[in-house]
């Protein structure tokens, strides 16, 4: 009850004209930044940090919070409409979002699903943050290297096994993604590794050009086969918010995965370093265990809802360790923490007692930002869908230019363009041979975290595997891991033996 009172107190701080306008500005800028391939929430928050200097600390951090939050919405726009994820969590959204927009000709509904799921996931995350924030932060601290290793192995393996039709191919690409991520600097010692004497490879392969190429540019190469396809007439007829609305049946399909992923995503967001990307991947992987009306990957509402709700919930969950313990859950969290410290605020257990107006004001502003972003995002759907009415012939040079510019802008060097180009060719060849690139991208993002945790676990245990079975959380996760790996194998053996029907 006390938390509820404090939340209302937070709303009294937030609901001033200046703060509402600033939240709205943050929401609009976040949507734009999120939708732009190559920028992402970390760069977006960092770039817009100077804009907040003119505000008082509470207003400034409210703006950054809403910017970060809206970013999670924006990432799905380009993923759904162009198959270019705006940021790494949106990689999963593209799997079902793009087919739903193009093959099923329901672009408005795909965007609506993404926005509604983001809202629901975010709302669940915020409610949990409000009532259980400090408790969640403590739970997050129980995740040491062994638990994090087990969790990350579950995330990676499940995607490798579950995405696509061939589990072997999925796991092969998961391994390739991990090896590519290990190039550059060693995560623990900082010594050069697998750089092959190349100065640029010392810094490793940058993720953003890699994902723009593997997903976006490879899409351009595939689009060449559809160059002469005419724009579908019914897309033009649905350029209204009403035409983009979900039916009651659609909404019933959306709700269960969004709620499930909302809870799961919040928990993942609390874990140090796991973040929205892990949340989105786990949310999508978990959906495979539940019934979907259409197969995942073919434009299923359940697929979009599960990952979008999870990534927004994770974004909300990451505020728990940030505010209650002063531990940022992600790179963006670290920038937010820097912003807080710049204004003389020290997040930690005392923040809620020493600066309650600020702490609860920020949490309240997340509620407001979630609502405002939903309204803005739904309002611009008709304009966004117009992208799909552009003929494929015209889209090809547009997406090519966006890929080149996005690849360049992350590193301000042609190295980014070269990485984008090579990964585009690689992604195209893989796609033509039935290898989906999503597992590789997930593994690439999570590999440094997995490696550092695994090595720390082995250092603590002096090389003993027993560390993964000693504590209940890691032991449970290892059992889940084996279940994921063994289930398809057992099914295969049973089918061969004639016990299970094919």
């Amino acid at each position: 009850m006390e938390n509820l009172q404090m939340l209302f107190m937070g709303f009294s701080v937030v609901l001033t004209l200046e703060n509402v306008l600033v939240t709205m500005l943050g929401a609009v800028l976040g949507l734009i930044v999120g939708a732009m391939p190559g920028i992402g929430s970390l760069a977006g928050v960092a770039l817009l940090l100077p804009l907040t200097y003119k505000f008082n600390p509470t207003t400034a951090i409210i703006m950054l919070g809403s910017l970060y939050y809206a970013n999670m919405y924006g990432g799905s726009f380009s993923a759904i409409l162009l198959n270019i994820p705006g940021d790494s969590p949106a990689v999963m959204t593209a799997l079902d979002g793009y087919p739903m927009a193009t093959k099923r000709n329901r672009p408005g509904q795909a965007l609506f699903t993404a926005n509604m799921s983001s809202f629901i996931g975010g709302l669940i995350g915020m409610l949990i943050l409000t009532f259980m924030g400090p408790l969640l932060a403590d739970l997050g601290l129980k995740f040491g290297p062994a638990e994090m290793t087990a969790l990350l192995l579950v995330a990676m393996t499940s995607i490798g096994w579950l995405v696509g039709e061939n589990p072997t191919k999925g796991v092969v690409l998961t391994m390739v993604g991990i090896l590519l991520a290990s190039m550059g600097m060693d995560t623990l010692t900082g010594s050069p590794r697998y750089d092959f004497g190349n100065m640029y490879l010392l810094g490793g392969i940058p993720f953003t050009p890699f994902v723009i190429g593997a997903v976006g540019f490879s899409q351009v190469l595939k689009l060449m086969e559809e160059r002469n396809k005419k724009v579908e007439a019914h897309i033009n007829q649905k350029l209204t918010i009403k035409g983009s609305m979900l039916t009651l049946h659609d909404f019933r399909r959306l709700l269960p995965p969004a709620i499930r992923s909302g809870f799961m995503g919040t928990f993942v967001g609390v874990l140090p370093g796991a973040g929205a990307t892990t949340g989105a991947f786990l949310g999508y992987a978990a959906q495979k265990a539940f019934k979907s009306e259409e197969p995942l990957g073919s434009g299923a509402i359940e697929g979009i809802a599960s990952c979008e709700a999870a990534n927004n919930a994770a974004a909300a969950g990451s505020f728990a360790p940030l505010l209650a313990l002063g531990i940022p859950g992600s790179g963006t969290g670290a920038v937010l923490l820097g912003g807080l410290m710049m204004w003389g605020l020290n997040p930690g257990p005392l923040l809620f007692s020493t600066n309650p107006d600020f702490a609860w004001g920020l949490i309240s502003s997340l509620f407001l930002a979630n609502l405002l972003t939903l309204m803005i995002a739904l309002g611009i759907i008709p304009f966004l869908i117009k992208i799909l009415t552009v003929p494929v012939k015209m889209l090809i040079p547009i997406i090519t230019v966006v890929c080149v510019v996005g690849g360049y802008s992350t590193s301000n060097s042609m190295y980014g363009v070269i990485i984008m180009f090579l990964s585009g060719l690689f992604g195209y060849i893989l796609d033509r041979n039935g290898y989906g690139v999503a597992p590789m991208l997930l593994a690439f993002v999570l590999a440094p975290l997995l490696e550092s945790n695994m090595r720390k676990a082995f250092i603590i245990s002096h090389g003993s595997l027993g560390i993964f079975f000693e504590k209940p959380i890691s032991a449970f996760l290892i059992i889940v891991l084996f279940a994921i790996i063994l289930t398809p194998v057992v099914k295969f053996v049973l089918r061969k033996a004639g016990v299970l029907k094919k």
Partner: protein
Amino acid sequence: MQSKKITSKMVIPVVTAVIAALFIYLGITKYGFWHEVRGPLPGFFPTIIGFALLGLSVLAFLGGRKEEGTTYPIENWYPALGVIGIMLATLVIGMLPSLALFVILWLKVYEKYNWKTTLVGLAIIMAIVIGAFVMWLGVPFPKGLIYNLIAY
């Protein structure tokens, strides 16, 4: 004995196996696997993953032998040639003019659009690039050899 045609579905696992072998070799010989006191060394993790990839590549190769080969239409590679052209032209005339030139050539010469459509398309693309990336984000795009010769 009937010889089986080599397809890219068989080549990909061979390539991943070679990558795995390279990472294992460098991991063990150059970066080190395990130290009695310090524990896992920089080569530890990539070597383990390398072994896993090697085993899986063999499985993928065996699976790939049963699958039909795929085709790569020559036309699909044109955008890749376009990006190579942009990268080379950037060295001489800079990135923004190269992008503009690519759009004009693609729309006018390859797609045979009329000048009006070509210029409208160009205006939209350049507005996004210049407005968002140059003016807002301040990305310093390369200006090329010719600009540098004139300016300095």
